[in-house]
């Protein structure tokens, strides 16, 4: 593919994603934060379904040597970087997807978050220019590097090459694990709604005017505050 064709394909993909995320109100932050804070899983379930489809699709194509997997060494920096990112996205109330989507909806807080994401990247570029860590992609070898705190490179393709087992087999195992998490969430939601229904029915007998069987009021107020956040 020519660079122009790559950019066009990326723009068409991005536009479709922006449209679908805007219309569905999907949010990666909510997928994690709401599960932890409110025990609600609307976005978590969507993320798990996408991961199951992609795991099967990616590993199927990796099995026959197709596709373009990401190729760079990972290490302690991967964990620490995403740890900082995880704190940041909850504080900002938006991740890399929702900042762009909310910015497109006219949210000035999201533009501000994007600006400071860029500032953070530039500040890190200055720091990296002194410490040269983590190692630059051009110097990565794929092998573990103790001095650089790097574990090397491994994915479904390397698993297939080392074990002789098709990558799709590993993909199936991962999909089953993701499906088990999804099932546990659905079961938990069902138990919770049954408990809420029982509590609601008891409350409505006592005083119809004050009963709030869904328990949605405080959650909605918090969610609105989060939405105003970015």
């Amino acid at each position, binding site marked *: 593919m020519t660079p*122009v064709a790559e950019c066009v394909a990326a723009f068409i993909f991005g536009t479709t994603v922006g449209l679908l995320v805007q219309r569905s109100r999907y949010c990666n932050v909510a997928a994690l934060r709401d599960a932890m804070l409110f025990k609600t899983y609307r*976005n978590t379930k969507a993320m798990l379904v996408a991961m199951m489809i992609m795991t099967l699709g990616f590993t199927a194509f990796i099995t026959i040597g197709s596709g373009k997997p990401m190729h760079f060494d990972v290490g302690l*920096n991967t964990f620490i970087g995403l740890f900082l990112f995880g704190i940041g996205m909850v504080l900002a109330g938006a991740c*890399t997807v929702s900042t762009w989507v909310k910015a497109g909806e006219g949210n000035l807080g999201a533009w501000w978050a994007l600006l400071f994401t860029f500032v953070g990247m530039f500040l890190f570029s200055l720091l990296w220019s002194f410490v040269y860590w983590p190692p630059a992609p051009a110097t990565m070898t794929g092998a573990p590097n103790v001095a650089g705190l790097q574990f090397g490179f491994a994915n479904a393709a390397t698993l297939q090459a080392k074990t002789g087992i098709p990558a799709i087999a590993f993909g199936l195992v991962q999909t089953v694990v993701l499906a088990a998490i999804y099932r546990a969430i659905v079961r938990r939601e069902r138990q919770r709604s049954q408990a809420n229904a029982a509590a609601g029915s008891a409350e409505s007998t006592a005083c119809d005017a004050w009963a709030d069987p869904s328990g949605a009021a405080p959650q909605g107020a918090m969610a609105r505050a989060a939405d105003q956040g970015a």
Partner: protein
Amino acid sequence: MEFFQKTLDPIIALAAIAVLDIFLFLTVGAWTVGGGETMMTGLAAKLVMGDAVYRIPFWNFAFPPDPSYWKIYISLGMVFGAFLGAVLSKEFYWRMPHRVWEWVMITVGGLLMGIGIRLAFVCNVSTFFGLTPEMNLGGYLAVSGILAGAWVGTWIYKKTLED
């Protein structure tokens, strides 16, 4: 058109995105956002600093600014697609946080996201929609990191709301 009048089920939306991401994986590479944002930062720095930006080793060796980097156009597409969706569904309007603490949280959060992406070489999108489905070791490290970070962030967020 009903699509612009009702909220779409996120499971349907994400399933469609997953299928499209498989096509992207076959043509240019899986969905990612952090790489494009880094390149935009480099291009912005070059716009402001000119060729002096190349005196910073990161922008000379690790990430030379290049406007033909395809990942930039995913982000530009997302903002355009969201704008289109918001306008057609009459949901576009200028809005902004009203409290000072919200601006502070967004500023700190944005800085941490930017530093975190560059430190890890990946963002949350690459973590959940690229590395982990590719069964990359980095995906599992990144998922562990982002879950721990989101837990700490949620704790701070909860404390802020309570105060």
